[in-house]
């Protein structure tokens, strides 16, 4: 009895080649776009005496760039990894990861600052979101913090700003609320770069009871301006504007 060679069935005729089943990759981290209703803050125009046509043209350009480069949803306090084109680096790209401490700018000039501590040296890099040099933005950990601006991490103990360079992406849910990290940070001894205890910075995420005496905290409250919340001139209500812009951006992105 002759052994069957590969590619022959019982009849002696060559079998039809059946390709092996494709491996199904379930990328749990960030393949799907977020289903939350999130409008990136740089889309909201500031309060200015500029013709709104400028903002609508800028929005078109921003949407065009977003169709090429996926800019994910992230907040101040999330951990991001950014690959940027660099002509002087071997491999022509460099990768940096860190905690986002600030999101600034409006329109195409929107920026975000990532902070990390590398070899004991604190490093902050300010990236422009719509710069053509950016090649990939990954959100390694999506979370919010108690403040909108984490610049006080410069004066906090280094353990709060270090991000492990081989960190793996943490899976986050696509729907539902973004987790809020309620850590309150311990500070180095004074002097600090800014007087964070003053009410104008409105910092919730520092443990003042460990570094300042109650008299000093009371003295800092003398700079509180209690009339500010009642001053109608300073109010800028963006809810209607935000809804309109969110609808416009969603329709344009799905095209």
């Amino acid at each position, binding site marked *: 009895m002759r052994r069957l060679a590969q590619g022959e069935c019982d009849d002696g005729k060559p079998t039809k080649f059946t390709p092996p089943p494709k491996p199904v990759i379930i990328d749990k981290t960030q393949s799907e776009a977020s289903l939350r209703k999130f409008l990136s803050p740089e889309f909201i125009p500031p309060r*200015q*005496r500029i013709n709104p046509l400028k903002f609508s043209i800028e929005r078109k350009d921003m949407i065009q760039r977003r169709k090429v480069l996926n800019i994910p949803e992230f907040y101040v306090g999330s951990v991001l990894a950014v690959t940027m084109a660099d002509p002087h680096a071997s491999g022509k790209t460099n990768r940096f990861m860190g905690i986002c401490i600030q999101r600034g700018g409006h329109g195409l000039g929107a920026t975000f600052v990532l902070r990390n501590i590398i070899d004991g040296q604190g490093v902050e890099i300010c990236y422009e979101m719509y710069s053509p040099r950016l090649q990939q933005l990954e959100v390694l950990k999506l979370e919010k913090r108690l403040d909108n601006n984490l610049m006080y991490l410069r004066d906090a103990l280094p353990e709060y700003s270090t991000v492990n360079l081989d960190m793996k992406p943490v899976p986050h849910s696509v729907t539902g609320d973004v987790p809020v990290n309620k850590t309150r940070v311990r500070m180095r001894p004074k002097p600090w770069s800014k007087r964070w205890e003053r009410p104008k910075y409105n910092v919730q995420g520092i443990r003042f009871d460990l570094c300042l005496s109650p008299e000093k905290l009371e003295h800092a409250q003398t700079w509180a*301006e209690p*009339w500010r919340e*009642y*001053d*109608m*001139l300073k109010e800028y209500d963006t809810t209607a504007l935000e809804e309109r812009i969110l609808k416009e951006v969603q329709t344009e992105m799905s095209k």
Partner: protein
Amino acid sequence: MRLNIQMLISHGRVARKMGLGPESRINMLRNILTGLVRHERIETTRGRADEVRFYAEKLIDYAKKGDTDEKAMKMANFWLTEKDLIPKLFKVLAPRFETQPKAYTRMARIPNRENLDKAAMAVLEYKGNPFPPLQTAKRDNELTLINQLLKGYREERAQQAAAKVEA
């Protein structure tokens, strides 16, 4: 320092400097606003009347939300130093301006004060007050040909905008 044109341009600042500082400015505006709500027609300097006008109209916008609204009550409590005027604001002034969307106040200029400072004065009033009418600056005669044509053009544009919104 360099005396340049930039010093004359406000660069987006809309609040006048009044009194001894921001707190003093707000307190002064509070007093004038309380007087306006009590008497419905007051006489002050032109700058102060112009500043109070914005706050008076915003206060009416808040009052229109009703006195059950927390924020509206907090605002009224802050801005009216005489607390017997809070019910007057919510029960008399807010219903009076229910139909109007925007302009609740009227400002008219007055001859300068007789004191040594000869300050430019103005009268600020809420519309619909019981006093005899003020003489404000006269608008152009609406019955001239050009004004009639412009009125027709404006109405046509409004009609087209309404039709666009419906469609």
